[in-house]
C-alpha cells in the first residue's frame, strides 16, 4: 500500500505533501527491515553459517578449475538427449498450443469452449516444470519421455496463454470483413486472425524454444533425461571439475539457442 501511494506522488511529481511521502517510504523500509529480522529468525539463518559457507565456496571454486572435459562422450550424449527433448517438446507443444490458444480466445469462441480450455492452460502453468517432471517420471519411468511430456505441458502453459491473449487483442473489423465475404470458420481464422497474430506467435514460439532448451538441461535432475542427470550425478560424486565442464556446455548451448532464435525471429519479422 505504501508503495502504491508514493508511486502516485512520484509519478505526478506532486510536491504538495512531501511529509506524507516520506512517512510512507520510511514505513515501507521499516517493514522490510522487520521482515528480514523475522525471516532470519524463522529460518534459523545466522551470519556464522554464512561465513562458514564462504570458506567452502572458495574451496569449491578452486576444485572447479580447470574444468574437466575428459568424459566428453558422456557429456555429449547428455547434451544430445537434452537437444532432442527440447526439439520434440517444442514442436509438439507449439502445435498443440496453436489450437488450444485459438479455443481459449474469448472473442472467437463461445464461453463453453473457452472456459474449460483456459482452465486447462492455467493448470499447465501453475506447477513448476520440475513438479510436473516428477509426476511424469513416476508415471512413465525415468528417461527422455518424461522430459518431453513435461516440457510439452510447460510450453502449453506459456504459448497457449499468450497466443490466446494475442488473439483477444486483434481487430475484429478485419474478421468482420472476411466473415462478410461468406467465408467459413477455417477461412476466417486463416485469412483474418492468423495474419494479425502470426508474427507474435513466432515470437512466443522462439522464446519457448529457448526456454525449453534451458529446462531440458534441468529436468534431468529429477530423472527426466538430458544433461541435468549427468550434472546431478557429478554433483553427488563431488566431481566439481566435471560440474564446471557441464555448466560451461549448458551456458554455451543456451547462448547458441538465443542466437538461433534471433535468426528465426529476423526471418519471420
Amino acid at each position, binding site marked *: 500500500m505504501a*508503495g*502504491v501511494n*508514493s*508511486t502516485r506522488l*512520484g*509519478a505526478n*511529481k506532486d510536491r504538495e505533501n512531501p511529509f506524507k511521502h516520506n512517512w510512507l517510504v520510511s514505513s515501507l523500509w521499516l517493514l*522490510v527491515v522487520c*521482515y*528480514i529480522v523475522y*525471516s*532470519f529468525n*524463522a*529460518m*534459523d*539463518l545466522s551470519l556464522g553459517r*554464512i561465513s562458514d*559457507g564462504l570458506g*567452502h*565456496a572458495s574451496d*569449491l571454486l578452486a576444485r572447479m578449475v580447470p574444468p574437466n572435459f575428459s568424459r566428453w562422450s558422456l557429456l555429449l550424449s547428455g547434451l*544430445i*538427449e537434452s537437444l*532432442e*527433448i527440447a*526439439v*520434440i517438446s517444442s*514442436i509438439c507443444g507449439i502445435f498443440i498450443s496453436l489450437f488450444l490458444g485459438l479455443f481459449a480466445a474469448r472473442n472467437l469462441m463461445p464461453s463453453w469452449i473457452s472456459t474449460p480450455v483456459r482452465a486447462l492452460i492455467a493448470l499447465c502453468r*501453475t*506447477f*513448476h516444470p*520440475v*513438479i510436473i517432471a*516428477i509426476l511424469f517420471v*513416476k*508415471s*512413465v*519411468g525415468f*528417461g*527422455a*519421455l518424461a522430459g*518431453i511430456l513435461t516440457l510439452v505441458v510447460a510450453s502449453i502453459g506459456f504459448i497457449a496463454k499468450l497466443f490466446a491473449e494475442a488473439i483477444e487483442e486483434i481487430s475484429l473489423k478485419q474478421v468482420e470483413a472476411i466473415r462478410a465475404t461468406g467465408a467459413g470458420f477455417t477461412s476466417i481464422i486463416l485469412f483474418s486472425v492468423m495474419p494479425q497474430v502470426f508474427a507474435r506467435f513466432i515470437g512466443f514460439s522462439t522464446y519457448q524454444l529457448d526456454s525449453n532448451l*534451458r*529446462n531440458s*538441461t*534441468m529436468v534431468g*535432475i529429477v530423472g527426466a*533425461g538430458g544433461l*541435468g542427470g549427468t*550434472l*546431478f550425478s557429478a*554433483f553427488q560424486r563431488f566431481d566439481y571439475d566435471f560440474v564446471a565442464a557441464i*555448466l560451461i556446455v*549448458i*551456458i554455451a548451448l*543456451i*547462448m547458441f539457442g538465443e542466437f538461433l532464435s534471433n535468426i*528465426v525471429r529476423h*526471418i*519471420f519479422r
Partner: protein
Amino acid sequence: MNAIDHHWQRFTLKQKLSRYAVYLVLVMAFVQSIQSVEVIPEFLLDAPEQMADMFSRMWPMDFAYYPVTVHDAMIETLNIATLGTLITLIFAIPLALMNASNIVSSTWCHWISKFFLVSSRSVNSLVWALLFVSIFGPGVIAGVLAIAFRSIGFVGKLLGEALEEVNMGSIEALKATGASWLSILLKGYWPQVLPAFFSIVLFRWDINVRESAVLGLVGAGGIGVVLDDSMNLFQWDRVAVSLLAIFIIVILAEILVVNVRKRLI
C-alpha cells in the same frame, strides 16, 4: 494456362527460401530427434494407466499431514521466495545502474554488468541450488541464495531497461540546478522508475514462489523437501496434500500480484 495469366507471390524469393529453410531444419531436427531419442513406446502407451494409478493413490488426501509438516514448510517456502527476492535487489540495482547507458557511459561497465546478468539467467535456479547446497550444505540458506542469484539477471535486465526509458528532460533540469550524482539518482531517476521497479519485483516474487517450491528436491529447503520425502516413501496421499498446498499458494500469489500491479499502473 494461357500466357496472360497473372502471377502473385507473397514473399520475395529470398524470404521464401529462408522460411522454407527454417521449416526444413525444424522438420529434420524433429524427425532426427524422434528416431534417436530413447523412448520406449510401451511406456508411452502405458502412461495413461500409470497416471490413473498414481492419481488413485493420491485420493483420499492425508489432510491430517498438513498441520504436522506441510504448513511450516509452506511458510519456509514463502520466506525463501521473499528473502531471496529482497537479497536480489542488493546485487540487481547496482548492476541495473551499470547497465543503463544513460546513467553510466563506460562500455567496460556495460560489459561487466552484462556478463553477470547473463550468467545469472543462464543457470537454472535448480542448478544454482545444487551449487549452494554443495557450498552451505542442505538447508534454507542454499534456497535463499539460489533464488537470489537466479533473479539478479531478470530484475537487473528489466530494471536497466526501465531506467533507459526515463524522461531525460527532468534529469537535465536537476543537473542544471547543480544537484549531486546521488541526488539526481534519488530525485530524478528513482521516482520515474518506481512503478516499473515495484512491478518487476512483484513479478519476480511471483515466479520465485513457484521456483522455491521445488528447490527442496535438491535439498535447498522449503516444501520441496517434504514433497521429496513423501515421494521417496511412496506416500502419495501426502504428496497430494503438498501439491494442493503449492497449487493454492501459487494461485494466491498470482492473484495478489495481479491486483497490486493493477493498482500500480
